[in-house]
């Protein structure tokens, strides 16, 4: 069993961002099946967490559903992250979710990045904004990033890109040891060593 967390930052309902996220989730589940891996998809919609995310910025901690969503993402074996393009980048809501995620939460996690926009002119947002963000977070970003402009939902080439990206994610998730359940405190504790080590610098 592998868990894929799907973070989607679409604001409207129905949302083309969510639609793309669902296509990627299905394709990833399909790609993992021949590898003998059952998949649990955990969708994290950011819109209902918008207030909690702002509170987190102001207070420094997560509560309730946001805390649960952070746990889902931190403990996932792989992440699909999909954002609408706002002002030539990821949306502020999308960025805020990753801004307040614990240090180290995505260390080594395979991540598939995807974005939607009204025009294909924004497609490099994936390369100049999302890929560096997840590299900074020490995630492993799959080579194929999936961009969908409105017009792409009428084209068969979108599905082939979705499947290629999902295949890449599936390979990384399958090859990776099952994700641990350590959080930042556990990691800090594990890295600390004995006090004599600290005393000796």
């Amino acid at each position, binding site marked *: 069993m592998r868990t894929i967390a799907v973070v989607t930052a679409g604001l409207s309902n129905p949302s083309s961002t969510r639609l793309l996220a669902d296509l990627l989730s299905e394709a990833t589940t399909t790609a993992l099946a021949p590898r003998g891996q059952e998949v649990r998809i955990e969708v994290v919609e950011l819109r209902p967490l918008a207030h909690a995310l702002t509170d987190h910025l102001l207070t420094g*901690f997560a509560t309730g559903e946001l805390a649960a969503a952070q746990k889902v993402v931190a403990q996932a074996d792989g992440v699909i992250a999909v954002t609408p393009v706002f002002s030539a980048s990821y949306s502020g809501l999308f960025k805020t979710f990753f801004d307040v995620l614990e240090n180290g939460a995505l260390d080594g996690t395979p991540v598939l990045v995807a974005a939607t926009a009204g025009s294909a002119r924004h497609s490099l947002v994936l390369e100049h904004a999302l890929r560096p963000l997840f590299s900074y977070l020490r995630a492993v970003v799959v080579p194929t990033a999936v961009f969908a402009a409105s017009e792409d939902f009428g084209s068969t080439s979108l599905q082939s890109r979705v499947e290629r990206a999902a295949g890449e994610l599936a390979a990384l998730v399958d090859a990776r040891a099952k994700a641990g359940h350590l959080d930042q405190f556990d990691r*800090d*504790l594990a890295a600390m060593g004995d006090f004599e080590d600290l005393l000796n610098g």
Partner: protein
Amino acid sequence: MEYGIFTVGDVTADPTTGRTPSEHERIKNTVTIAMKAEEVGLDVFATGEHHNPPFAAPASPPVLLAHIAAKTDHIKLSTSTTLITTNDPVRIAEDYAYLQHLADGRMDLMLGRGNTGPVYPWFGRDIRDGIALAIENYALLHRLWREENVDWQGTFRAPLQGFTSTPRPLDGTPPFVWHGSIRSPEIAEQAAYYGDGFFSNHIFWPAEHTARMVDLYRRRFEHYGHGRAEDAIVGLGGQVYLAKNSQDAIREFRPYFDVAPVYGHGPSLEEYMATTPLSVGSPAEVVEKTLGFKEYAGNYQRQLFLVDHSGLPVDTVLHQLDLLGEVVAELRTHDAPVAAPAPVVELVEASEGVAQ
């Protein structure tokens, strides 16, 4: 069990009047608040240390505490916190030993790192060295209060040859030290290693942080042979606003809460109370919530409350202290029976002595 108050010494506009006290007023009010804390029967007054506006808490807490010591008779004076990172440990050794003499021993101190990035370079330090500074500086401070003619060399300050810090601690007993941290396990480990107290700020954070840090400290305190985990020396922060009935407390405190520097413009007062130790209500409600801290922290030795921040006027704070005095009187009736201090090693030696 000790009860007291701790202040961050912020100079904040009163949101209900728009009036900001001067630094001078805030400093004098802090003295008044400390004297009132003694009058209503509290055990401890602790001050923060800050080096940047809007804090009028002293850059040198011993100056404030020595002044309060001269104006009070029995309240214990402490810090929340003394910056072990950016202060020279030699100055801490001397200043606080001096305070210990002036206060006739009626003091202890809590060490903390400070989380304001620019303060570090202002004192020639780097916040990224925060943990390393806390560990090295305290290792030196610990020796300076216990040894004379100290030879020492470290990473962060000039080496010492044959140095004896003065004055020596009162009656040869170093001031008691608490180590404060929100979520750095190294500091809980440090407190456990030395058998010192561990203080969890507790306020502004969900209880889970506190529970894990206190648990780590207790286990490591026992590991290092200072006694049983349940006898480790734990302090907790708390934050209260009191009125005779809860509706008045909520109504009076909400305008301060809504724009407070730490959590203002964020969660509602009700949400914040549900997720952090903030307790706004009648004395009975505050007693109940405070007693609940033991459920995840175990029996502990010191409870400090924040009562004077976010622009609350001094008259309100003094009235809060009257009500807090009632709360503390009630809390004392629930105190666990005092466990004997836990010098396990000494007890074994003593019983062997009897056998001989």
